[in-house]
């Protein structure tokens, strides 16, 4: 066992031996969890605490944060999302000191304060796929703390519909002889299906309450504005229809929810059913229900699930990926890969866009990170398979030159002013100031300008693929920037010239009358309409029930 080439396996056995007296077989009693964590984890360990977009290993996180900093210190946390207060507590209490992560939206302000106080050492901020990749290269966890729905006595695990990061984390940890500890909502005699086999995991604890899960992808149609309807009409007619986009990913904002809700109405009236939006890399957005019911959608693979969509997804197993047991199967690593390599289009919103088309959601005083948008919203240079949308975009960029590869459509859709008259178009992104304040090596840019193909605003669509110089690109962006200072500083003649060439297209140019842009076009105007469209299968969380 102590041969120099198998030290990790030996260490795995030693760690488990240290806690054997604290567990009953694979099962740890909730009251013993802190003792187990203090005994099995070692100072300086690399620990992956499962923090996802939605599902959280919250009991494990709180227990880790309650461990003694005398016993556990200098941990290196590797996790995709810092969502819970306890994810920051482990740093504030001196248990962990180093962090590699992807997204910290809910804890972005506390994280920035820790950085400014030099209480935390951030290795890097990653996209999901980058971080998962590094789990198998130079950030392999010594211990992972994961969330599952249920365990059986042997230690097999069922993950439920929200698989998210779990398979990637467990694969990297278990097969490098790290320790895998799961919190589960229940122990059962027989699992509906085995998602993690018992010999890939070590210990489990039945948490005193079900793991926290956040309905992140539910957008109430009641909050969609006429302007968002107008922009959705322009995107559908000016981009989806023109390129024949069949395979795509949507962002999670109201702009793209509006597009989803216009498919059975506006897109149907244009004869686009069967011609666009057949295959999706997307969480089960409730706002996609009407399009699914109308026969637009052939398949949806998801990163995670969405609270309330379980019964609907299970009842639509031709569309969604589901197990032999009937319940949903999601997987963030595979869905991100699909978004990067198998989709022809990403469309999403942002907070700021600069004159080169770089976009950022960074806000001063917050370190929010990236999540998945940069993987989806980038042209995969390694892609080799062709599709009509990909080829057409490639041809537009190549101009008269020989065509060696296609191009993903990466679309940013923004109203020129956000709330409180904050302009979405700026000369310089706040990301540069944040870089200075936080001592980062690069500004936190969400989507790089050279990956963006189109910008949609209420004023029109700018096709950046057709721009032949940086100056043209700048004027194309100014030309759809409306009454923002950036938009008003446009070179009006050059913008008209770009419009003549079809680089900029106004609603008129694509046959859209702005008067038609009203909420009446939405296939569902509130959450109750979505429930009705689902035949009562969609069960919205309480906070969205307003009737």
């Amino acid at each position, binding site marked *: 066992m102590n041969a120099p080439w198998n030290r990790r396996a030996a260490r795995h056995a030693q760690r488990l031996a240290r806690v054997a007296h604290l567990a009953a077989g694979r099962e740890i009693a909730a009251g013993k969890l802190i003792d187990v964590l203090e005994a099995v984890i070692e100072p300086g360990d690399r620990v992956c605490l499962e923090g996802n977009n939605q599902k959280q290993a919250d009991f494990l996180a709180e227990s880790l944060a309650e461990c003694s900093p005398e016993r556990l210190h200098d941990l290196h946390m590797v996790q995709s999302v810092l969502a819970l207060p306890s994810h920051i507590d482990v740093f504030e209490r001196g248990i962990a000191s180093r962090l590699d992560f992807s997204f910290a939206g809910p804890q972005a302000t506390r994280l920035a304060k820790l950085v400014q106080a030099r209480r935390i050492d951030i290795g890097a901020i990653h996209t999901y796929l980058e971080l998962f990749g590094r789990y198998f290269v130079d950030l392999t966890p010594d211990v992972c703390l994961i969330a599952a729905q249920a365990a059986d006595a042997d230690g097999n695990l069922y993950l439920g519909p929200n698989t998210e990061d779990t398979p990637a984390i467990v694969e990297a940890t278990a097969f490098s002889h790290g320790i895998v500890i799961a919190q589960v909502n229940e122990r059962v005699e027989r699992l509906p299906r085995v998602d993690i086999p018992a010999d890939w995991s070590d210990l489990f604890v039945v948490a005193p309450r079900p793991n926290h899960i956040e309905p992140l992808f539910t957008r109430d149609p009641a909050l969609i504005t006429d302007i968002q309807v107008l922009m959705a009409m322009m995107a559908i007619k000016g981009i989806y229809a023109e390129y024949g986009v069949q395979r795509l990913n949507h962002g999670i904002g109201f702009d793209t929810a509006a597009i989803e809700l216009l498919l059975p109405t506006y897109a149907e009236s244009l004869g686009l059913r069967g011609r666009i939006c057949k295959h999706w890399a997307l969480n089960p957005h409730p706002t996609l229900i009407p399009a699914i019911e109308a026969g637009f959608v052939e398949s949806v693979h998801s990163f995670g699930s969405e609270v309330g969509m379980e019964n609907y997804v299970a009842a639509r197993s031709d569309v969604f990926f589901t197990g032999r047991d009937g319940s949903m199967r999601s997987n963030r690593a595979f869905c991100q890969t699909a978004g990067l390599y198998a989709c022809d289009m990403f469309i999403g919103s942002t907070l700021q866009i600069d004159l080169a088309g770089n976009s950022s959601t960074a806000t001063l005083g917050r370190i929010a990170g990236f999540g998945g948008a940069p993987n989806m919203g980038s042209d995969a240079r390694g892609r080799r398979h062709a599709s009509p949308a990909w080829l057409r975009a490639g041809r537009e960029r190549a101009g008269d030159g020989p065509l060696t590869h296609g191009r993903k459509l990466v679309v940013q859709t923004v109203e*020129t*002013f*956000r709330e409180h*008259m904050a302009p979405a178009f700026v000369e310089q992104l706040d990301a540069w100031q944040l870089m200075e304040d936080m001592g980062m090596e690069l500004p936190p840019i969400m989507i790089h300008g050279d990956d963006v193909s189109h910008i949609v605003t209420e004023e029109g669509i700018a096709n950046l693929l057709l721009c032949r110089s940086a100056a043209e690109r700048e004027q194309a962006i100014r030309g759809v920037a409306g009454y923002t200072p950036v938009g008003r500083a446009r070179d009006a003649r050059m913008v008209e010239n770009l419009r003549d060439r079809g680089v900029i297209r106004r609603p008129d140019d694509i046959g859209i009358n*702005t008067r038609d842009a009203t909420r009446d076009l939405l296939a569902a105007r509130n959450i109750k309409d979505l429930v009705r469209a689902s035949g009562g299968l969609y069960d919205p969380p309480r906070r969205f029930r307003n009737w």
Partner: protein
Amino acid sequence: METFTLDLPSTPANGARALCGVVSSGNLEILVDTGHAPDRCRIDVSTSAQGFRDTWEAVLADAVARHPAGGLVLSINDAGATPAVVSLRLDQVLESLEQAS
């Protein structure tokens, strides 16, 4: 709160004398009434946003250049609408007048 009045040149609106009306939604209300000079459009703006008069002027000048609005008086009550919403509502109200006449 900021209030101001603009008097802008515009093509006479057909049958403007017979028309009055209102569009409103959430954070914006536009009242239309008849004025006196057939080639001028008077616009009274009352807005909750401070310091955006030049933006308003640009939005309104473009709107009355796009549509015949001469002979009209527009009263705009704004509670935080973006320029996009203002432009859209003006398009909607002025096009409705064109069609009605």
